[in-house]
């Protein structure tokens, strides 16, 4: 972890009395906290943006009273929820009830560590980079499930089942799509992936010719999987309020509810950030060119925040535009379509960029790209045919 955060030289001498590993750990924790607080501030205003956008789409005004145009609505709600009574249902499993909420919040917050906000603005430059984020995220489904089970409520239990099933179904394709980009760049480091996209003459991975335009398919489906992963409409089956009241969150109230809603937005944020890093250029302001001002840390943090809000708005747009899917449709989309397409697309991308990995000559590379497109086209065609017939 030599070339990591800018703070490190400042912080390192302060903790010299600790053992080696511990110093690093403390420095990582502090820097993660600093950058994490920036993200947490976004959490206070992201939902407001979303609610405003949705309100405009529905022709209403959204939050207006608290603060300027209701900008303090979310902090106010949070304050209220924190001071509410802490209720735990009778015959709830105490261990599970505590563990689930602890796991969910801890995993969400520590997932910020390897996300760079600028060339030298990151919590920790872990050797596993993006894999760390995926690993930490994979703890989310069991935590949701335990929470649903331990609430001792049928809605929560069914919601927990659905939540775990859904998260599991979309985690794997999401990871596979990420794997293609990771393998192409030869690193797990989100910073290196971003820097590669920043170079001049190189577009963002979403529309880069260096991936044989396979980034388009991969990125699009990664985005879908990310939306499903953050359990937003149209994929909010676990908390479908008409069927399951609030899903696994039904029995949580007070500060637990505040925490769990916060975590939901953090999920949206982190999934958007992952998409931005892997496909949308990270903190790169302009694709194809490499200008000097793009390396300024202030510009970088502003660009990344702006992109983040763009995706919050897209999420709000999706939320107000699309109807909810059925659970079987959702699972079949995840397992039967996104996963095989993920496999085809990641093999195709790899084959395009490094044909020698598939044992092919470099002269086949555009053919590989074309064949991948054709295979995906065929696959989707056949699948839609079969689903249409069944329905």
């Amino acid at each position, binding site marked *: 972890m030599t070339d990591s955060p800018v703070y490190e030289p400042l912080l390192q001498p302060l903790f010299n009395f600790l053992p080696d590993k511990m110093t690093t750990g403390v420095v990582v924790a502090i820097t993660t906290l600093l950058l994490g607080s920036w993200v947490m501030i976004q959490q206070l205003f992201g939902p407001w943006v979303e609610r405003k956008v949705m309100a405009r789409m529905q022709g209403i005004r959204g939050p207006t009273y608290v603060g300027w145009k209701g900008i303090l609505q979310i902090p106010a709600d949070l304050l209220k929820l924190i001071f509410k009574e802490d209720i735990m249902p009778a015959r709830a499993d105490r261990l599970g009830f505590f563990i689930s909420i602890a796991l969910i919040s801890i995993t969400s917050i520590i997932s910020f560590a390897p996300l760079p906000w600028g060339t030298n603005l990151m919590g920790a430059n872990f050797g596993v980079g993006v894999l760390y984020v995926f690993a930490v995220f994979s703890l989310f489904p069991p935590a949701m499930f335990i929470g649903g089970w331990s609430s001792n409520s049928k809605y929560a239990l069914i919601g927990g089942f659905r939540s775990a099933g859904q998260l*599991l179904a979309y*985690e794997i394709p999401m990871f596979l799509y990420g794997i293609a980009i990771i393998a192409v760049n030869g690193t797990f480091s989100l910073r290196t992936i971003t820097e590669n996209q920043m170079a001049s003459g190189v577009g963002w991975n979403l529309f880069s010719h260096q991936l044989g335009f396979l980034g388009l398919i991969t990125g699009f489906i990664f985005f879908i999987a990310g939306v499903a992963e953050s359990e937003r409409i149209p994929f909010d089956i676990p908390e479908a309020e008409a069927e399951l009241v609030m899903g696994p969150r039904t029995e949580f109230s007070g500060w637990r509810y505040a925490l769990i809603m916060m975590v939901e937005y953090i999920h949206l944020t982190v999934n958007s950030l992952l998409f931005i890093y892997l496909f949308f250029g990270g903190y790169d302001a302009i694709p194809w060119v490499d200008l000097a001002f793009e390396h300024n840390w202030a510009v970088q943090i502003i660009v990344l925040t702006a992109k983040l809000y763009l995706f919050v708005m897209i999420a709000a747009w999706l939320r107000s535009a699309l109807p909810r899917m059925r659970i079987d449709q959702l699972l079949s989309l995840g397992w039967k379509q996104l996963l095989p397409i993920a496999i085809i697309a990641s093999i195709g991308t790899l084959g395009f960029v490094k044909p020698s990995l598939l044992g092919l000559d470099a002269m086949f590379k555009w053919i590989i790209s074309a064949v991948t497109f054709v295979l995906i086209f065929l696959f989707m065609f056949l699948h839609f045919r079969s689903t249409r017939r069944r329905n």
Partner: protein
Amino acid sequence: MVDYGILLAALGILLVFPQIMRLFDNTLIHVVLYVVFSGILGYLMGTDAILLAPLMLLTTYFAAMAVIETRVMRAAIYLLLAMISLGFSYIFLNSEILAALHISVYGGGIAILVLFAAVLIDENSTIVDERTQINGYIITFALAMIMISLVFKGVPKSNVATAIINLDDGFALVHDYSYFLWTTYAHVIPFLAMLILGSLIGAVRLALTDKEVLQEEMEVAI
């Protein structure tokens, strides 16, 4: 070099700690006990390993609870927790990538399968008779003692390098590891993939089979 007595004492703490925790039913006492015992363990293990001690204690505690606990669902939760803390302990071995993989496979994959199965089956098991249980404790304790003494005698003589290479660039390490996997073990990975695919398909087929069909198959087999 670690003293043999200290080693045995640490082993004793690891094995006895869960039993002591079971005697109390209060969260505060649990926390105090945990802090005290990890302090003792850390003191025994020396300053270098002071961060490993609480993690070790936590892992063995969760593992023991997963084994001892009567409710299956609780056992599954303890499995999840034990696996998470075990995964973090890999970071002390410079193996961040295996820590990440371990947590994602065990936390995201196996734990959730066990949780699902536990909820679907919903049966709290009966422990076998007293005699078997006591036999089990005796045998495992004997095994632990004999193994640790064997290792204690063996390790100083064998040629284990005394230092982990302090690799500053984790990415280079991960890259080297991936390259090694891709070159030296390239022929294993397809088999592994086929194994996992086969188990997936088999599991899905088993889980989707109707009860009647299953019973018919059983009868045919008999």
